[in-house]
C-alpha cells in the first residue's frame, strides 16, 4: 500500500500501543518511523521487526553494564531499540561522551530515534559521496553525529556520540543503507510525490496490533458513546 507519512506514523503508534509498549516509547518509535520513511527508508519494516523481536522476547530492555555502555537486561539477548532509543536520548546530555549500545536489534531504527529526537529542523540525511567523506545518517546540530564510514560495521569510536556494537551481521537493508546508499537523499521528493510503500505483511501486522487499541462495538456504546443519536440529522 502507498501511504502518507502521517499514516505510517499513526499505524506504528497504534500498533506499538496495542502491543503493550508504553505510550511515550510508542510515540518515539512512531516518529522515528516517519523520519525514516520520509527519506524513503523502510521505517515500517524496521519497526515491525523490532516489535516482533520484543513481543517474542528475542530482544529485551536495557541496563548499564559499565559507564556509558548499555546492554540487554537478560544475557544472550538482543537489546530492544524500542527501549534503548529512549535511554540513549534521555542520557545524551548526562553522558558527555560516546555511549555504546551492545547488540541492538535494529540499529537503523535506533539511529533514527536518536536523530529525530535531536532534531530541531537541522537534522539531515548526509550523503556526500560513496568513497569517503560523509556517508550515513548524520545530525548536524550539537555535535551529534552518527556515521557509517569504516570497515567495522556499526562500530566507529572516536567522534561519535553513539557507538553500536553488534555480534551479528546487520540485515542487508540496514547494512546497505548505512554503508552504500548514495541515492538516499534523492528519495525524499519521491516520497512526497508518491507516498510511502508499506508491504502487505507489515500492514497486516500493524493493523492487527493496532486493532487492540480499539473497543468492540456494542449497543450502549453506539447509542450513548458519541453523544449523538444513531441517526443524527436535521
Amino acid at each position, binding site marked *: 500500500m502507498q501511504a502518507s507519512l502521517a499514516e505510517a506514523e499513526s499505524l506504528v503508534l497504534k500498533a506499538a500501543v496495542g502491543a503493550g509498549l508504553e505510550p511515550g516509547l510508542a510515540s518515539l518509535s512512531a516518529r522515528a518511523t516517519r523520519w525514516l520513511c520520509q527519506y524513503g527508508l523502510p521505517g515500517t519494516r524496521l519497526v515491525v521487526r523490532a516489535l516482533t523481536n520484543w513481543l517474542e522476547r528475542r530482544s529485551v530492555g536495557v541496563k548499564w553494564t559499565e559507564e556509558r555502555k548499555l546492554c540487554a537486561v537478560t544475557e544472550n539477548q538482543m537489546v530492544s531499540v524500542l527501549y534503548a532509543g529512549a535511554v540513549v536520548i534521555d542520557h545524551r546530555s548526562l553522558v558527555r561522551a560516546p555511549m555504546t549500545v551492545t547488540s541492538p536489534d535494529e540499529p537503523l531504527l535506533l539511529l533514527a530515534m536518536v536523530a529525530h529526537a535531536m532534531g530541531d529542523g537541522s537534522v539531515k540525511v548526509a550523503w556526500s559521496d560513496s568513497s569517503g567523506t560523509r556517508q550515513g545518517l548524520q545530525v548536524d546540530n550539537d555535535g551529534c553525529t552518527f556515521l557509517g564510514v569504516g570497515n567495522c560495521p556499526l562500530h566507529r569510536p572516536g567522534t561519535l556520540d553513539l557507538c553500536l556494537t553488534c555480534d551479528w551481521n546487520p540485515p542487508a537493508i540496514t547494512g546497505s543503507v548505512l554503508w552504500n546508499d548514495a541515492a538516499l537523499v534523492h528519495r525524499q521528493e519521491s516520497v512526497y510525490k508518491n507516498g510511502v510503500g508499506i508491504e502487505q505483511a507489515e500492514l497486516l501486522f500493524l493493523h492487527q496490533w493496532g486493532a487492540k487499541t480499539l473497543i468492540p462495538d456494542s449497543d450502549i456504546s*453506539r447509542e450513548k458513546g*458519541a453523544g*449523538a443519536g444513531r441517526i443524527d440529522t436535521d
Partner: protein
Amino acid sequence: MRLPSEVMRPERMGAAFPTRLSFMRSLVRRLHREQWQIESTAFDLDDQGYGHAIYAARGPHRTYSLMVFSNPLRDDQRTDRVIAESWDACFVLFDGLPTSAEVKRLAVQAPRQEGGRFCPSDLILSRANRSVRLYEHVRDALAEGRQPDIARLAEVGYLMRTTAVYGNGKFGTCDRERLTDRPEFAGPFQAEMLIVYLIRCFTLDHVEHVARCQSPDTFVPMAGENKRFLGIGNATGLGMAPFLITHPELIHYWANTREIALQKVRSTQWAQGQVRQRFYELLQRVKGHVADWCVADEVQRRRIDELSSDLVRLCAWVDSETSPLERETPWDAVYCWAVTEASIECQELVVSLLIELYPGEIDPLEKCLATDVRTPLDGSMQIGTLRNVIEQVYAWTFESDFNDRDANTYFWYYSEDKMEPRLGFRDNEAGTEREMPIAVARDVQRLYQCLSSFSVVTPVATLLMQYPVHRHTVGRVQTIAQYPYGEVQANLIALGSRPIDLLRWKLAFFGASKFDPKSNLWTRITLYQGAPFPCDLPQLDADDWCFPVRPRVA
C-alpha cells in the same frame, strides 16, 4: 495578560467566540488581498442535483480544485455520525486541475470517504449532508419564484452540513509538511478552510440548479444578501477533542496569540473617534447576531438569554454619562466591566469585539498561530525540578481526588466501529485498559507520587529507565512548562466533564459561530455565515463579515 489558569479552563473555553484571528477570517482576507479567481469549471449535475462538479480556485501561485460528487441518499441513511457509510455529497480538494482520469479515480474513491484510498495530490477530503429542515424549503421557494423565509434561514443557517474534514495524510492524502512552504497554507488549517469555503459555494449553486430544473419558468435566483447569510454547517463530535491534548505547543500558540491580541487592545491609552464608532456599530450588530442564535439545548439557551441581557446592559453602560470610552484605557475598562458584571459568554464575546477594533495591530499576529515545534524530552532535568514544575504548572491537577469515583467516571476510547471516538463509563463498560491517553490530571498525579521515591538530584533519565510508563507524562510536563497555554486545565474523565467546551474553543479558532449543542459531546455549528462569495470578493469589504445578522425583508 490573562493567565493560562484563567483562559484554559473549560468553562471559559466553552464560551469562546471567533475573532479576526480565526482561520476562516485569515483565509478570506487572503482570497481578497490576492484576488483569487474562483469559478465552476464543470457542473455535470442532473435535474435532481446528482453528478459531479469542479470548482477551480486560482491564486497567485497555484490552482486548487474542489471536486464534488453528489449522489442519491436515502433519508434513513442520512446521519452525521462517523459511522455513516454514505452522504449527500463528497468532496476532495485537489492540488491543481484534475485530468479526466483523476476525476474518474476520485469518483470512485471520494464517496467511500474513510474506506477510500487517496494520494498526495488529494489535499483534503470531506463530505456533507443536506439540512432536511432548510434545503427543501429553499429549493421550493426559489422554484416558485420567491425568496425563502428569512426566519427559516436564520433558524438553520446553512443548506448542507459537513460531517468530517480530513487532511494531513489521512487515508493517503497529502502530508501537511509538504504544504507548509506554500504561503496560502502556512497558517493553521488553511487548506481545510479553503475546501469548506468552496463547499459553501457549491451548496448555493446546487440548490439553485435543482430549483431551476424543478421549475425553469418560475425560478428566481437567491438574493445576494440571503446567500451571504447562509454559511455551511458542520456537525462535530469527540474526534476533535484529542487534537487539543496531543498538540500542546500548537494550542499554546493559538491561545497565547489571542491573549497577546487582547492585551494589545486593552493597553490602548485612548480610543479614537472612529474606533469608538466602530465599537458602537459592532455592539449593535452583535445584539442582532445573538438574537438570531437559535438552539434547542436548554443550557445553551439560558446562556444566550443571559448574554442578550448582558449586551443590553453593556450598551447602556457605554452610552451612559459615565461612559468609559472617552477616558484613558477605555477597552480595558470595557473588559473589566464584563468580568465583574457579565456572564462568561459576554466576557468572551467582548474579547472578540475588542480584537476586532484594531486590524492593523492584530492581523500581523496571525503569523504567530502556526508551529511544528515539538519539545524534546530533557533527561538531565533533576527530579526536584520536575516536582517544582508540577507544583507550579499543574497545581490544578491536585483539585481532583482520583480515589473518588466521580473524578474517574469516564474513559475515552476509539470504537472498532469506524474508529469513532467515544466516551464510556468506567464502572460499567468494558475496555478501560484501551483508553486514550487523555487523562492528563490523573497521569500527572501518578507521576508526582512516583517522584517521591527518588532523590531530588536524580536525573529524570534514571526515573524513566526504571519507569518508562511515565515517559509520556514527563515529556508533557516539560512541554507545558515552556508552553503554558498548551494544556486544558481540567480533568477530562471526571463526572460533569463537558468535552463540548473543548470543541467550541477549537471551532471558534476556526471561525465557527452559532454553536448548537446536541449533548455534552456533540455540537452543530455554522461556518462562513455572512462571508463574501467569490463574486463579492473584489467589491465588498471582504473582512467585515463577523457576527452576521439576518437580512432585512425587502
